[in-house]
């Protein structure tokens, strides 16, 4: 752009750049949300509702194991909202000064899934410990993997099942995929992971009471968000009646 007159252009240029600078941070409702893999379906729907409520806004979602996204955040990944499948991962992020005060927004249950046409031998959770059964769990560092092992330990079959684990998936969706494809005889995922698509390919075995573990989801705004107003707005959307209804529809518990 060729300036025609030096002095007359300067104030306008200053105004233009000031506007541009203020639009860079905080003025839009665009949000970057990092969430646990198990929140894939629910948060995609919540983001959709959010974008409808804030026309022009764009929500960028990333889903991965809570431990993976926590590692990214520790490494400096820019984000606005963090949602984890356990309080421990969130507490570590809080201790590292990466997030503001977290709140619990949902709960979940563990279920055992087996391929729909898999060996009829796996009928109860105890069968997971029987020799020859190929079990897939999430990695121990991933909440789904930790919860699953805690449940199995509570049933006294922890080491028996661990001996049957053929793969530690990178996240809970990896477990679902292995069972859905029939490559594993059984896996432990969340109740919310049993989407209609997955339900068509697996059978669900519920966990007995004594194996029940408290699965708690935590959400927080980034300590230094890219879009502060959007961060707050998205978190509010998750905790709003509409957000809670969406979570409930995906088999989450809403306290």
């Amino acid at each position, binding site marked *: 752009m060729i300036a025609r007159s030096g002095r007359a252009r300067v104030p306008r240029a200053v105004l233009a750049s000031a506007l541009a600078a203020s639009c860079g941070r905080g003025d839009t409702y665009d949000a970057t949300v990092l969430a646990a893999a198990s929140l894939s379906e629910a948060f995609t729907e919540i983001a959709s509702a959010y974008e409808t409520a804030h026309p022009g806004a764009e929500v960028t979602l990333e889903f991965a*194991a809570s431990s993976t996204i*926590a590692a990214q955040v520790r490494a400096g990944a820019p984000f606005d909202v963090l949602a984890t499948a356990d309080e421990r991962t969130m507490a570590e992020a809080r201790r590292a000064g990466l997030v503001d005060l977290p709140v619990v927004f949902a709960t979940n249950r563990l279920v055992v899934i087996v391929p729909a046409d898999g060996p009829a031998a796996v009928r109860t959770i105890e069968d997971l410990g029987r020799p020859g059964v190929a079990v897939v769990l999430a*990695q121990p560092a*991933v909440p789904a993997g930790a919860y699953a092992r805690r449940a199995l330990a509570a049933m006294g079959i922890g080491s028996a099942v661990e001996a049957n684990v053929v793969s530690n998936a990178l996240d809970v969706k990896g477990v679902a995929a292995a069972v859905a494809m029939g490559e594993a005889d059984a896996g432990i995922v969340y109740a919310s992971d049993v989407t209609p698509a997955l339900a068509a390919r697996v059978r669900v075995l519920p966990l007995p009471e004594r194996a029940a573990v408290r699965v708690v989801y935590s959400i927080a705004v980034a300590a230094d968000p890219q879009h502060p107003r959007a961060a707050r707005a998205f978190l509010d959307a998750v905790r709003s009646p509409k957000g809670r209804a969406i979570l409930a529809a995906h088999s989450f518990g809403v306290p």
Partner: protein
Amino acid sequence: MRPPFFVVALAAVATAFFALPLIGLVAEAPWGSVGSALLTRQVARAAALSALASTAAVGLGLALALPLAWVLARTRFPGRRWLRGLVVLPMVLPPVVAGVGLLTAFGRRGLLGGTLDAIGVSIPFTTAAVVIAATFVSAPFLVVTLEAGLAGLDRRLEDAAATLGASDARVFRTVILPGLRPSLAAGVALAWTRALGEFGATITFAGNLQGRTQTTPLAVYELLQTDAGAATLLSVALLAACLVAVVAVRGGLFREPE
């Protein structure tokens, strides 16, 4: 002819682009805790498995690549170009796609699933699966370099040897193989390091279990979630292994053009 300045400047930028991640790895690694980070059972098992699987993958790859390269270099048939494209495909395919493909071919529900089950063989989630995945993605490098090597041989030497009474096998051993040495070296270096670094196909087809299928890259990923410093140190170790492999076959890759 001296290149123009802008070419040299861009080359310098390119060098920085390639060098910075490597420099960063070495600089950011917590060298003070290298002992406690790397002298663990997990790292030892991952390193041993990676070394074993990559070498096995290259061996298997050579057995597959040499006949293929021969056919491609020395025969003419319709569709030869398609065959070459097919063989190069695993090299350019996203690794996780390769993994899904391997599952649909060799998995329990795959094309060969029933047959394999009938003979009591199950491949996914085994060390064999690690080798197969690594071979699938790295063998194309061998095919490409061996085909180029074969195409570049002077046939007259082979003809002369044959005229002097040498059998096909002897011609292969004494004339062809030595002539292939530079391309073999280059291909093996590329294939071995590619096999070593394989992640997506491995995690999908072979899974992730310490001692059985957790290769070094998978161990790095797992460590990244719990101990980023150890992950960085292990990454440097992987980097060093690749560097050694590439330098050791220096003759093939880096020989200055005469």
